């Protein structure tokens, strides 16, 4: 491989990785934008999403790498699995909000954040017990097609990840910017009290933010499973911390910022592994987290935090 082909290949690797981080980062950002709450349960919703997708795909008779599907049936199966996963993860997010966070809504301080850490551990341990902590072979129904362009290999899977992530992210952005509910969301983010006085149902808006964020985490979980072909109770933690870094880097509360942050973190991870060494990836990524917090706390694209004066 030539130097430029290697560089391009690592960019492709990085964008695929970044797409998963970006989908996850969006959930952090949505909830933070509205409640000023860092939702650590998000890690585990992502992980549960991967397992929901696993169960759905196995219900279609797909086991490990044994079954390969093509054309319309493949698209249909993946679509059904994606919808089920997103709805189930979204419902889980709503349940977490309704039963553990809403009672704390008006409590000042880090109580709610600590609650989310607790919820995260509960989910984490439930899955750990259910799976006996094993890594599970994730079904891989997609044909192993790949395209070679001058030494660079692009796999069908990667193209699929990009398309699905792009559609979901653009969809979310349009939802927040163009719809009435999106407007209500932005209103609540700016000033919940005033929004309530203008007739916005704040509880409803918060619930929708949790649903959307968690559904995206579920989608990220399924994409993760299809791409890496395994699911394990511990996947949420590593990916989640990096996604959180992405959200902070892009400007927490800022939707396009989360996407940009995700891609940037993905690229840093792969290019860092290529030109420095894989063992330094974590050091670099979390130095960026600290650096951003110290030197540019609003992130690359600026924070859309509630502005209560």
């Amino acid at each position, binding site marked *: *491989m030539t130097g430029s082909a*290697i560089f391009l*290949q*690592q960019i492709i*690797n*990085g964008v*695929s*990785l970044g797409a998963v981080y970006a989908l996850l980062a969006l959930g952090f950002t949505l909830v933070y934008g509205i409640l000023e709450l860092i939702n650590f349960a998000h890690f585990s919703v992502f992980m549960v999403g991967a397992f929901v997708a696993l169960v759905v795909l196995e219900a279609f008779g797909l086991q*490990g*790498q044994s079954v390969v599907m093509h054309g319309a049936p493949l698209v249909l199966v993946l679509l059904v699995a994606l919808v089920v996963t997103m709805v189930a993860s979204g419902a889980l997010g709503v349940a977490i909000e309704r039963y553990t966070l809403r009672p704390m809504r008006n409590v000042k301080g880090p109580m709610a954040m600590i609650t989310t850490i607790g919820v995260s551990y509960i989910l*984490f*341990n439930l899955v*750990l017990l259910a799976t*006996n*902590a*094993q*890594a*599970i*072979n994730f079904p891989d129904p997609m044909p192993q097609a790949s395209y070679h362009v001058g030494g660079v*290999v692009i*796999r069908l899977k990667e193209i699929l990840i990009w398309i699905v992530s792009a559609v979901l992210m653009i969809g979310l952005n349009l939802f927040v910017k163009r719809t009435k509910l999106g407007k209500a969301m932005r209103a609540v983010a700016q000033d919940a009290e005033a929004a309530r006085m203008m007739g916005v149902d704040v509880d409803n808006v918060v619930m929708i933010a949790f649903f959307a964020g968690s559904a995206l985490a579920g989608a990220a979980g399924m994409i*993760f499973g299809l791409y*890496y*072909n*395994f699911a*394990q*109770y*511990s*996947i949420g*933690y*590593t*990916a989640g911390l990096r996604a959180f870094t992405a959200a902070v880097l892009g400007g927490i509360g800022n939707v396009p910022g989360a996407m940009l942050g995700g891609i940037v973190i993905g690229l840093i*991870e*792969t*290019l*860092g*592994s*290529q030109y420095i*060494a*894989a*063992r330094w*990836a*974590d050091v670099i990524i979390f130095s960026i987290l600290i650096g951003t917090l110290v030197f540019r706390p609003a992130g690359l694209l600026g924070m859309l935090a509630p502005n209560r004066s």
Partner: protein
Amino acid sequence: MPLTGADAEAAHLILNGALLAIKLANSSGELKGITLEPMVLNNATATAGQYDPAQAATNARKLVGDKKVLANVGPEMSGSGKAMAPILSMADLATITPSSTAPALTDPQFAGEFVPGGKPIYFRTVTTDAYQGPNMANFYAETLKVPSVYVLDDSGAYGVGLADAFAAQAKVKGIKVLGRDRLDPKAADYSAVLTKIKATNAASLYYGGTMQAAVKLVKQSYQIVPDIKKGGGDGILSPEMMTAAGFPAAEGWYATNASPHVVDDPKLASWVALYSKTYGVQPDDYAITSYDAALVAIAAIKAVIKSGKPLTASNVRNAVQTVKINGLQGPISFDKYGDLSTRVVAVFQFKQNKAAPLADMDKQSIYIGVAPQS
């Protein structure tokens, strides 16, 4: 043993081996009125997702705190062994490991760290990575005849040591070591480092480590560098290679074992039948070394009883040092550091057998032979 988590299946095979030996000793009455009671401790934790040295240390303290514990069989992993050895050493409690292979544990150079009590307490019924890594490098050079290699490890005590030992001997044998990097076992994506390996045009890959990183490495290397020769140590000679990593990705991987391959030996057929009848799974070679490790402990306890000395951990340790028995794998005795006197490294290759159960190691891999000893 890490009885839950990434290495659980392999750990259970080992545990069963020791339990079987204890069961047979008890039912035969050879210990004259004494019934051995196995105490099984798990050293895997949820935070680590695999074996956790901190938990292993806690377990070691539990063992030395219990006067009724005469000897220990285990641990499976060297990372756990390094945490346990100093604690066991201070209490003079012998442990006989059926599978942990990091040389440092018994290396006199590190005696201050791992044998602060002075007398060896870490005995092995397998040989060490001082042979497993280099012998595999010989195999790469002489049998596979690869011109170059890229060496990875999983950041653990076992993996780093094994990979270092391999890389050093590979250089001696004239294999070009194109790179040496470390994987984070909890990360999911190794495509970057694999792309880097692809870019070096390396003819082969060697991985020192256990299954948590291997599951992802095996899957992703199949995508990115499908055609190069790939291999590792005993950490990947595990059912998870088929059940979690899966075929076709696992196909063609080489793995070694730090013990002779005797599971298929016709002389052992009745033992294998008994094991699989009792536990419902096929044993692997480390189930045999684990059975042998328990035999060593039992023989030592017998020797202490015979000598009329009080039955204490310290007396049992002294007896272990001088044990000479015929185990399932052959004659077993220890050198003055606690290492097994015979040194055999067996090489296997994963090869799918669609007719056999996926988790059946013996059927899903073929025995290549004994790696050349230098």
